[in-house]
């Protein structure tokens, strides 16, 4: 990342230079009859101002909980602990978990807002879309005229006709229109950070693409920090500056998108990339990850991935690995990350020409993949990325 300081030695692995949100030991637990369900397990993470962070993981890996935790919006009876700090562009850092109910209501949507999974059901079916904007602006005591002007501008930025969308009822809009209207609604109070939880899940591929490119231009125009949560790794890889991989309610790997795709170092990340459907990969090359995701009440001891990991040994069972630096911009929670590329070779070799000009990596942008591979530190040729959308050239 160009915004990164190169010298990270004086900082802990999870820290970034200018964080807008700091999560420290964020933990979400639900008390259940059969035990305590820990659906977010000590996640420590910085979100760099103006970056696009993609959070990926399989269903039920705690991605949505991580998103909710950033707004202190975990649903009852979940309990969020740890520390969430918001750094406004100017002013003092805010300890989000210490805010009063009133301050929290203000903080949400004005500083950080969220687009939920399921835009289809995020609008009140008996209320016009425009009224959603008005009531939001009014609830935060913003000027209604200026606020609605902004709403119109946002809708236009998202290629929606405000005169058509605002007086419509939600059921009169298509899924893609609703999704874009929801993004406009989440930005109407000019937040710094936008958290999106599976924002494209219910949309067709074309609409996913176009929303992605709209998000990119919105981010530029409004200086947003985007957190994009998805299980669709190829999709988010196009947009994200950094990727964080979650497994079993914890972060297991985080790094620049390019790094993760080329040199994913956690065995889970590598298997996940191999499991991603890809037009270029022969079907027999696709590898599902054996086993099942753990139960949040009963997460395996040590490294929670060890029952499914080909590299697991006694150490993995005994203790949970701490993050280790793979490179300046890349860290991984695995004892055996150095062995992972050998043990789990990537099964596809795909070009990512599109992303190259934006990265400042060492020599990876050469058009010829073989050349690129030869310059990599690791001996074998496994690091080709499973960048898979098949249409990114």
């Amino acid at each position, binding site marked *: 990342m160009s915004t990164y300081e190169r010298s990270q030695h004086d900082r802990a692995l999870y820290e970034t230079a200018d964080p807008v949100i700091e999560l420290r030991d964020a933990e979400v637990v639900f008390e259940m009859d059969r035990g305590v369900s820990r659906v977010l397990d000590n996640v420590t993470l910085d979100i760099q101002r103006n970056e696009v962070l993609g959070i990926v993981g399989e269903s039920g890996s705690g991605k949505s909980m991580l998103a909710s935790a950033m707004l202190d919006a975990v649903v009852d009876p979940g309990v969020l602990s740890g520390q969430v700090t918001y750094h406004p562009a100017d002013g003092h850092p805010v300890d989000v978990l210490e805010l009063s109910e009133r301050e929290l*209501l203000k903080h949400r949507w004005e500083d950080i807002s969220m687009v939920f999974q399921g835009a289809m059901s995020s609008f009140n*079916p*008996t209320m016009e879309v425009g009224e959603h904007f008005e009531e939001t602006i009014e609830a935060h005591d913003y000027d209604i005229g200026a606020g609605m002007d902004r709403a119109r501008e946002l809708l236009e930025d998202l290629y929606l006709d405000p005169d058509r969308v605002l007086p419509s009822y939600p059921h009169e809009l298509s899924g893609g229109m609703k999704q874009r209207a929801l993004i406009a609604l989440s930005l109407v109070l000019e937040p710094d950070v936008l958290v999106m939880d599976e924002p494209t899940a219910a949309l067709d591929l074309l609409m996913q693409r176009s929303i992605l490119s709209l998000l990119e231009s919105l981010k530029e125009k409004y200086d947003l920090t985007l957190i994009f949560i998805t299980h669709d790794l190829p999709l988010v890889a196009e947009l994200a500056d950094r990727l964080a991989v979650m497994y079993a309610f914890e972060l297991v790997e985080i790094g620049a998108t390019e790094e993760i795709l080329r040199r994913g170092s956690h065995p889970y990340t590598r298997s996940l990339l191999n499991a991603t459907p890809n037009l270029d990969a022969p079907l027999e090359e696709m590898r599902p990850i054996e086993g099942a995701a753990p139960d949040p009440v009963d997460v395996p001891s040590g490294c929670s991935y060890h029952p499914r990991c080909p590299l697991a040994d006694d150490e993995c069972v005994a203790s949970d690995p701490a993050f280790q630096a793979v490179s300046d911009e890349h860290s991984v929670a695995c004892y055996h990350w150095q062995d992972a590329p050998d043990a789990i070779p990537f099964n596809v070799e795909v070009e990512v020409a599109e992303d190259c000009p934006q990265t400042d990596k060492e020599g990876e942008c050469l058009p010829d993949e073989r050349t690129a591979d030869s310059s990599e530190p690791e001996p074998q040729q496994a690091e080709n990325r499973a960048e898979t959308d098949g249409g990114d050239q």
Partner: protein
Amino acid sequence: MNWVLKRTGQSVFTVWAVATISFGLIRLMPGGAEDIIVARIHESQGSDVPAEVIREQVQHRINIDPNAPIHEAYLQYMGGLVRGDFGHSVYLNRDVATILAEALPWTIFLMAISTLLTFGLALSLGAMMAYKEGTRFDISQTGVAILTTSIPYYVAAVLFIAYLGNRTSIFPARGRYPAVVEPGFTIQFIVGSFHHAILPAASFVLTVYGLTALAMRGNSIQILGEDYVRVARLRGLSDRRIALRYVGRNAVLPMYTSLLISIGFMFGGSIILEELFQYPGIGYYMYQAIEYQDMPLMMGTFLVITVAVVIALFVGDATYSKLDPRIKSGDDSESY
């Protein structure tokens, strides 16, 4: 517009069909008002007048000729209906139309109070139970609602009459307004009317609200779990606005139809209720008519109830789209 015509046609057809079927059913009943009247006149006037003469006089007075073949009697009655002539009540010796016009406002008054109270109580209580789901309040109120629902309204009515009407005389147990007050727009009359309506209305409300409250509770709990409520909370909307505009508004949608259907139910219930409270409304006269086999009066009260239900459903259909924008009325096909 087309829709209004179509729907009006349907309504008229329904009324006609009900009128025809009830006419046929009533004709099938053994005996008849004529026999009862003739017997009674015989008793009161002594037996010096020949039965045949009385019978002829009676037949002349009532709109229905029991000896005519059924199709002729039917045509005669329907012809009268079209002209607004409901016939003549044999038992009460008055025009049925006059009786109905006099009784209907009282029944509507009573039903309106009962319906408003029932739904007011049920909707607010149901919503409160949903908000406090699982608390002691919710559990106890659920129990109370089930208990009261399982009491028939006429049992409640009898208990009210016995304890609140007769034994303690807190409320009048019979009649529509105080006997000493002249009908008119006076304070005494209006207060008296409400005073008289309290027990009959309470017998209905307290035994009927439970089901509606439980339905409202269920709807509200479902709505509270909707994504749009969660998003609304995160957007910082006030609890009041969320409760009214989000939860209440959407939870009440399915209740609207049941409100209109309950109008028919209440008219049906008014037969026993008004008889118990000696409250001369539509139900009271229907009871009398059945007891004395007074066919024109019976038909008249039947028809009033039918028309009331048909109108309620018509209004419901026509206005539902105002309540729920997803439902289209009019020429658009309904999108359930």
